[in-house]
């Protein structure tokens, strides 16, 4: 009999065939992000396709999303979301050093900044729906706007939920240095949510405007 592990006489020693930099967690997260990108890509392509094709006409994106009317609101919220990416990077770095308390502080800051963005979006939507009567049924622009921005907000919500879960575990004292990798993967997801917002913002508020 012969086993599968015995190196045959004269055969070259086999190389370790796996890449050193890519473990399963990272690869899985990258694939998840890739599939999310094709999902958002489809929604955004539809949004771009429908810009200016509204037969009803009013209200136009310019009337609804005029950045000059509420100059700071959306930009302000966006800055909060984008800077949260910085805080989460700092948090992961602290965890890698084993500095749990500093990790908790930066992590909480990330959650709060994300929450601000979500609340800001909520106020914006409240203003559009309750005060101006602009809904998903109003016209094509409404359909696209609420779908795209809504799906992004849903992803922020999922992200915040997971971030809070980690925060609760940290408070219970269950997070340790060896969890750095799992937490880092979560931060990749958060970076993706932030990154896709830059694209959504550009298309919805600048190009579509």
């Amino acid at each position: 009999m012969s086993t599968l592990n015995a190196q045959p006489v004269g055969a070259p020693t086999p190389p370790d065939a796996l890449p050193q930099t890519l473990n399963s967690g990272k690869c899985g997260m990258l694939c998840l992000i890739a599939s999310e990108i094709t999902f958002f890509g489809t929604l955004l392509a539809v949004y771009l396709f429908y810009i200016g094709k509204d037969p009803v006409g009013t209200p136009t994106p310019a009337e609804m999303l005029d950045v000059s009317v509420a100059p700071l609101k959306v930009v302000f919220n966006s800055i909060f979301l984008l800077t949260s990416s910085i805080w989460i990077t700092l948090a992961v770095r602290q965890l890698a050093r084993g500095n749990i308390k500093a990790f908790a502080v930066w992590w909480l800051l990330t959650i709060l900044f994300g929450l601000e963005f979500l609340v800001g979006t909520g106020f914006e939507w409240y203003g559009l729906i309750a005060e101006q009567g602009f809904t998903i049924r109003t016209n094509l622009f409404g359909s696209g706007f609420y779908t795209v921005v809504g799906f992004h907000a849903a992803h922020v919500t999922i992200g915040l939920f997971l971030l809070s879960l980690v925060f609760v575990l940290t408070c219970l004292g269950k997070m340790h240095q060896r969890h750095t990798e799992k937490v880092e993967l979560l931060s990749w997801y958060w970076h993706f949510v932030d990154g896709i917002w830059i694209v959504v913002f550009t298309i919805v508020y600048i190009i579509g405007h």
Partner: protein
Amino acid sequence: MTTLDHPGNPTRIKPTFLGRMHEWIATADHKKLGVMYVTTGLIFFLIGGLEATMMRWQLAVPGSTLLSPSDFNRLFTMHGTTMVFLVGMPILLGVANYFVPLQIGARDLAFPRLNAFGFWLFFFGGLLLYFSYFGAQGLYGMGSAPDVGWFAYAPLTERTYSRGHSTDYWILGLLVSSFGSIATGINLITTILTMRCRGMTLMKMPLLVWLMLIDAVLIMIAMPPLAAAQVMLLFDRLLGAHFFDVQGGGSAILWQNLFWFFGHPEVYILILPAFAYVSEIIPVFCRKVIFGYPLMVAATVSIGFISLGVWVHHLFALGLSPMVNTIFMGSTMLIAIPTGIKMFNWVGTMVGGKIRFDTPMLFSTGFLALFLIGGLTGIMLSVVPFDWQVSDSYFVVGHFHYVLFGGLVFSIFAAIYYWFPKVTGRMMNEALGKWQFWLLFLGFNLTFGPMHVSGMLGMPRRIYTYHADRGWDLWNLLSSIGVLVQIAGVAFFVWNVIHSLRKGREAGADPWDAWTLEWSTASPPPDYNFEEIPEVYSRRPLWDIKHPDDPDWKYE
């Protein structure tokens, strides 16, 4: 530990029924999940086949009134949806689930729990779709199944034209099961990229693993756009959005583009596994290495790329600009090149080989013949004027059944006959297998061959009946008679499975004298697959051990 229900297991205890149910429901083992995927897929195959039988029964003679027009619409919608999403997808994912870890020398997939999650999403998604027969108008009235065709063209799917919830069931059932498929696709990519055993570089992977890698990448890229399109349609129907609502400025053409941007890669998601199975089976039964391994890999990768850029050939009859049509005609013809390379490589493997025509090889050879016909009619259809002539006719129906039935289903049967001994520890019966092959081969050609003729004579697809004076009678009758022969073939298969599970010959670890790693472990494999993780030196690790005087690693 869990008790193992394998013949030859020393610690075999007879578990209770509930215990066994719990064992299957709670499992995270890729082999059990693989078996569940394939079994569910085969059950849905019988259901989808039943639906097809009813349609052919109705169409056997002109002016038949066995089925009402609306029942007929539901049948062809459910038949198409079932065969693509609930038969093709689970079986290909199931076989990949079972054999990718075994072939790369791993103990499980990268994310075993996610794998179980993916299976159950698919399973419940399928049940939700079929629940529409009872609940499609809400829980308050008689329900019925979707009737908008498997590609559900807008604006037929809008609230105005499709009342009740039947179309919503179509959307939701597919959404749920496609989430599962995406999860499993990601799982497969990660497993293949990060869990190969020592020595198995990318260019030493078995071809099944290569093809499933590209397949999983296509799933990851092509299925989320379908989900996005379905979500938009759902918003149209439930919230009153206007994406595909033509009165509100929405575009019906956009739905067609979105659907086929998913739909055409989906065709390749379905056919790449067929290529994978015959690429494993043909070399073993010809006793030769696969001809042109690097070219096979290159062809697979290029099929993956090109398949993302051909979807407009489904829209030739739409009246897009000649420039667009010409470009997509070119890209469609281009994809025939890598596919042709594969055909020649399989034939090249057979040339000079010592061919053993056991049932797996019979089905593989049948695949080569039938898929060739399907591929050639595909090239005919890629020519825009010809497509205009026969678009949405029975010619198209004949074409894609030659590809998906003659191609995919025949290769699935080849794979089942090939790997059944590994999964169950018992051989399938050869005599019954040959009966099944010849009946199925004959019945298949009798059913789908005449469809090319009736299509050329102008018979459109999806009509529930026709007049006697069109000259279609004979061809339709032949098609319907062919179904009876196919039913006999499938009956032989069911009989064979039941018979072999109980009384089949003990297979041993390596009944076919094959070369890839799954044959180095016991049949059925223990839960941990390999006692020691193997090391490989060439593409055929078992060959190297069996033939120390002439091992492959000297040449690779």
